[in-house]
């Protein structure tokens, strides 16, 4: 049972003048699903490729169980690259057996495992077909099987959900959950934030080559400035309070942004003294809003 932690420790990478990663750090713990989000070009793929050793970092280190990752430990990682890749003219079963063997499995073990994942991912009818004859969705399933076939201790998946139909998304989610509960640290990147929000134990938001926020979805959502939704006939009272800004007004409903240290109970009192209050709630940003926030702030500062 793998019990380790995958640590990405201050890795940096530049391509000529372009800085792809700047001191990026995060860790993924055993049994955890870690979602890796960020806009295109933020450095997610570069970070994953460095973790897999297909790219060398300029500085920093990737560690597994406290030891720098080398080829032998790397073999224990299941990897799904952003650019999907399989031998187009190789049969599904042969391909998976070959990849399992390359990752250090014996021939018999490789066969058993390949057949196992083929059945699991619903590819039994296509097991002797060449990969190029499969539909795109089925090719994706083979790609996932390729990442899982050697029963890895760590999973690193770049955009595993892109291009999947809803059924395949469910299968994929289930498999990832299962792997995580078996104690495997799983890190995957995705643009489907609702999916990340639902699935992940922790999320890291990347922008311009650095990790700008990490934490559980709840932690991330309760961070940042507090917002209140208040429904009352007037809003003039809000202007009289220090540290409160009306950022949205829609009929009798308004959204207030509170500066640090402003007591929401004081806001409620002020509202009640001005008239009846029909709704008073704390608004928590969705991951999408958080993400948009982070990215636009970074965009402005860059």
């Amino acid at each position: 049972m793998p019990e380790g932690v995958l640590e990405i420790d201050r890795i940096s990478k530049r391509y000529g003048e372009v800085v792809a990663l700047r001191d990026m750090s995060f860790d993924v713990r055993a049994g955890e699903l870690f979602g890796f989000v960020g806009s295109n070009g933020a450095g997610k793929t570069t970070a994953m490729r460095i973790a897999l050793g297909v790219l060398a970092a300029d500085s920093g280190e990737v560690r597994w169980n406290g030891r720098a990752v080398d080829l032998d430990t790397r073999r224990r990682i299941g990897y799904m690259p952003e650019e999907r890749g399989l031998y187009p003219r190789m049969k599904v079963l042969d391909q998976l057996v070959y990849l399992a063997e390359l990752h250090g499995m014996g021939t018999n073990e490789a066969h058993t495992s390949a057949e196992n994942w083929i059945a699991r991912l619903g590819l039994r009818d296509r097991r002797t077909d060449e990969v190029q004859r499969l539909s795109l969705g089925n090719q994706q399933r083979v790609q996932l099987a390729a990442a899982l076939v050697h029963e890895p201790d760590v999973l690193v998946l770049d955009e595993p959900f892109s291009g999947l139909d809803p059924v395949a998304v469910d299968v994929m989610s289930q498999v990832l959950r299962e792997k995580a509960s078996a104690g495997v640290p799983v890190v995957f990147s995705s643009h489907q934030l609702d999916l990340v929000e639902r699935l992940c134990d922790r999320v890291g938001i990347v922008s311009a080559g650095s990790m700008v926020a990490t934490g559980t979805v709840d932690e991330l959502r309760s961070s940042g400035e507090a917002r209140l939704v208040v429904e009352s006939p007037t809003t003039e009272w809000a202007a009289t309070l220090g540290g409160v800004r009306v950022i949205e007004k829609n009929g009798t409903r308004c959204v207030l942004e509170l500066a640090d240290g402003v007591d929401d109970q004081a806001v409620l009192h002020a509202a009640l003294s001005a008239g009846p209050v029909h709704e008073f709630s704390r608004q928590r940003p969705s991951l999408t809003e958080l993400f948009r926030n982070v990215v636009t702030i970074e965009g402005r500062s860059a």
Partner: protein
Amino acid sequence: MTSARAVSLVAKREFVMKVRTRSFLIGTAVIIAVLAGYVVLQSVLFDDQQHSVVGLSGQATQLADPLRDKAKAFGIEVETRDVTTAGDAEQQVRDGSLDALVTGAPPELKMIVKGSGDEVLATALNDVLRQQVLTAKLAEAGINPQEVAQSLANARVAVTALEPVDPQRGQRLAIGLIVAALLYYSLLVYGTMVAQGVVEEKSSRVVEILLATVRPWQLLLGKVIGLGAVGLLQLLVISTVGLGLSSAFDVIDVGTLGGAALLTGVLWYLLGFFLYATVFAAAASLVSRQEELQSVLTPISMTIIVAFVAGINLMIGNPSGTTVTVLSMLPPFAPILMPGRMALGVAPAWQVLLAVVLALLAIAAITWLGGKVYANAVLRTGARVKLREALRL
């Protein structure tokens, strides 16, 4: 997992995938068919030249035995047929089923041929006639013809050649050319195959998964060994069938020349393949799509083609000339020219040894350099990687 296991897994995949393809099976079959056709044609032409059918009519029939013996001494095979009607026989000469018709009574014979007569046959016939006349005259004069014949046979010039002509020169040249042609074909085809394999992995991006678990040099070496083994298998199948056919049709003295040629062929195939395959692979790793492949492979293919075409011409002209001798020892040309010269029997041992040593040194250097280019370029997809960048990294 050991490096050996990684390399052997890669090599096994390459071998099995390639040997199973239709193109390999068909390609091998076509080459064998062409070779068989050539051998059969050769043997037919060979037979035709050496074999004449002579019709003998009337008293000329008694010449059958001495004519056959005499012709054999001249190195041609004569089949004699007794013919009864001269008219029919003449028709047979006309339609080609008889090469010549001999009529009349010795010593005044007539020979009828279709176009130009076979001079050797005519000379043989003249000799036979003179012999008979001589024997008859000697018997008339009371001298024992046998004794005279004995004395005659003993009177001859003993020739000492300062530069003896190899009686097998023709065969050697043929073998040398065939060996050079087979190596040319194998290096070009299997080198290109390595290149296509590299680009296939690059364009399908599977290389990224592979390199997450094996090192670039293991992948490269496995690929070269696997495809090299396919080429070797094909070379052996073709040579074995070729030698078998040649021996069956008596075209080439298989025992001595053929066996030696096969051995040198295999040795130089291995040296040549390891020399060129890495270069092909490194060049291929610079591009990302099959369509771009031709442009990077052309300089390499051209080297092999020039070595073959120029080398063959020089070799036929004078296999011991300075240009051929020097070229045949230089690594890029040696794998094609040296086995040819070895088959011709004109390469001294020191030249062969020097060529092998130079080839091995070149392989070591090329493998190091090519492996570096490959490792640097193989993950860089998109635009063509400049050679200078791949070397600098």
